[in-house]
């Protein structure tokens, strides 16, 4: 019903293209893992290795401690929920869901009962006799889930399962997927390029880029404490302020940037040497009004260039006094009055600033002014 997965040094090469480069990952039984990354990052290839549709060029994949090696998809304790759902168009929903059980020689009455139970779970019990083409996108997605779960796999693989749905339905299905996963306890490995979906749904997110794992961690960790510039920018809007690492004491580090030298609390040793290129990553919502309690630092004054209202906040573009060529994106409170030309103080909580290795490739889409 559920099983751990361990991927060791998996590499997949297509011709002269390396789709996966020495990937290692341990997934606990019953965990909801999301593989997140842009298209071409290798996430779908990794999923295909788990499902047995591709075999690794090198490295091993173990499910429940057993090497999957040459095990065919049919013999693996995994099932896949395909991106296009791949519901058999000539079968009723009941027959679709019961298909895997039929292949396992389960009797007709029993497999139909099981199929109806699963259709009930996804809220489609009354449609058991319908054909897939009579359903909406969200309903098809539910049937695909029921079909994949009907054979009680140890690991369920979901390939961009919500990609074809509109935004509102996608949010709703995220909640349902997560609830169903908690109920059945199966290990879910879910592939997506939507970082909001990943955060909403995952126990742990695996950020992938160019065939490698960039970052692994809980949604909070990945968002608040990204380990790389790629992760920081992929997980949401972020300001990158390039600088040079100057010095570290026991409790603080200092970074020289074009907005002056910034003193930050040292909470985690990242092995920076003095003179190394580093980048400060600051989320737009971390700029706060200068009032309030707690430690705070300032990056100087900045002029408001423009602003737009987003309901929960104002999103403003600012140009710092010390370095007007740079554009900073900041979220200002709902109640703030955003006047182009006004001056604001760039205050923030030093613990929310993340120091990353290297400088962002330029231009970075996230930090460039739209």
């Amino acid at each position, binding site marked *: 019903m559920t099983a751990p997965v361990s991927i060791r040094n998996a590499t997949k090469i297509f011709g002269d293209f390396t789709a996966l480069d020495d990937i290692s990952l341990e997934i606990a039984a019953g965990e909801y893992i999301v593989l997140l990354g842009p298209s071409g990052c290798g996430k779908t290839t990794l999923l295909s290795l788990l*499902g*047995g*549709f591709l075999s690794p060029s090198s490295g091993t994949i173990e499910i429940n401690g057993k090497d999957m090696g040459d095990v*065919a*998809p*049919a*013999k693996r304790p*995994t*099932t*896949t929920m*395909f*991106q*296009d759902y*791949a519901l*058999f*168009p*000539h079968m009723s929903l009941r027959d679709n869901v019961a*298909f*895997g059980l*039929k*292949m*396992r020689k389960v009797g007709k009455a029993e497999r139909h009962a099981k199929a109806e139970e699963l259709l009930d779970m996804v809220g489609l019990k009354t449609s058991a006799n319908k054909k897939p083409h009579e359903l909406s996108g969200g309903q098809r997605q539910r049937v695909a889930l029921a*079909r*994949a779960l009907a*054979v009680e796999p140890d690991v369920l693989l979901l390939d961009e399962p919500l990609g074809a749905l509109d935004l509102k339905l996608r949010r709703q299905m995220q909640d349902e997927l997560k609830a169903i996963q908690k109920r059945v306890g199966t290990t879910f490995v879910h592939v997506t390029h939507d970082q909001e979906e990943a955060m909403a749904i995952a126990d742990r997110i695996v950020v992938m880029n160019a065939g490698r794992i960039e970052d692994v961690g809980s949604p909070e960790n990945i968002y608040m404490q990204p380990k790389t510039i790629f992760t920081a920018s992929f997980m949401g809007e972020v300001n990158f302020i390039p600088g040079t690492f100057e010095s570290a004491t026991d409790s603080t580090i200092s970074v020289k940037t074009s907005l002056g030298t910034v003193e930050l609390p040292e909470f985690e040793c990242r092995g920076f040497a003095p003179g190394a290129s580093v980048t400060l990553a600051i989320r737009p919502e971390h700029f706060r009004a200068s009032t309030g309690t707690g430690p705070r630092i300032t990056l100087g004054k900045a002029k408001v260039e423009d602003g737009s209202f987003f309901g929960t906040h104002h999103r403003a573009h600012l140009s710092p006094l010390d370095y007007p060529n740079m554009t900073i994106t900041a979220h200002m409170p709902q109640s703030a009055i955003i006047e182009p030309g006004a001056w604001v103080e760039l205050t923030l909580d030093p613990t929310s600033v993340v120091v990353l290795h290297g400088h962002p490739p330029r231009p970075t889409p996230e930090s460039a002014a739209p």
Partner: protein
Amino acid sequence: MATASLETRENRRAWGFVTPAMLWTVAFFVIPFVVMAAISLATRKGREIVMAWNFDNYIEFFEKAHLLKGLFVSLEITFTVTIISVILAYPLAWIIAERVPQKWQRMALIMAILPFWTSYVVRSYSWLLVLAQNGVINNTLVYLGVISEPLELASTRTATVIGFVHFFVMLLTLTIYANLVQMPPNYRRAAADLGANGFQVFWHVVLPLTLPGIMVGAFLTFVLCIGDYITPQILGGNNELALPQVIMLQLGRRADFPMAATLSIILMVVVTLAYIACARWLKMERT
């Protein structure tokens, strides 16, 4: 309203586009058909055709063995050809879709249908070259000493069936191939993922999903085969006559238009029945 609405005016324009084709179809297809149906109710007196408005010709068809036999010969040949063609074409389409490398598939298909583009009359004639008493097969076998007397290959039903199958294997390969490659690969992956073995994937998923392709091809085969005069005439000879041969006989030697029309209507009814049987696979959808 004083003036017609925009929609009405647009519709009037639309009729302008559709009407010429419609007139053509009515004038040269519907009306001739009605005329033929009417003639089938007439009788022949010498060289004159007299409108009798009765079903004597139809009754005669069921009473006279040589006429009725034409229909049965045609049906037997057509069913044999359709079944053999499907059985031969399916593996071919499958191999082209699955085994032949992608970039050669188009070439393989073009090659498979190349003889399609010889003249239809010439194609039957070429089979005659192969099957005739002094044809390629007989001459080769005699030369090799396998047989001493030439085999009776031409002017048999087997020759007709071979000639037809040759033609329809190409056609069915096309329709089945189109269906096979249109099928999203995930259907098969999903079935395999859910535990189906190779045969089960084929039986439960691939075959039902390619059934439309088979049926479209089989229907075309049926219609073209049962109405064809050339192949049975050239390859089958006059030993047993298929329905189209019987029809041509009425026209030629006897100039019996009413009976020819009657037989045509019967042929048409048979085709219509076949259409009704296959109708649910033959929907025309606009993409």
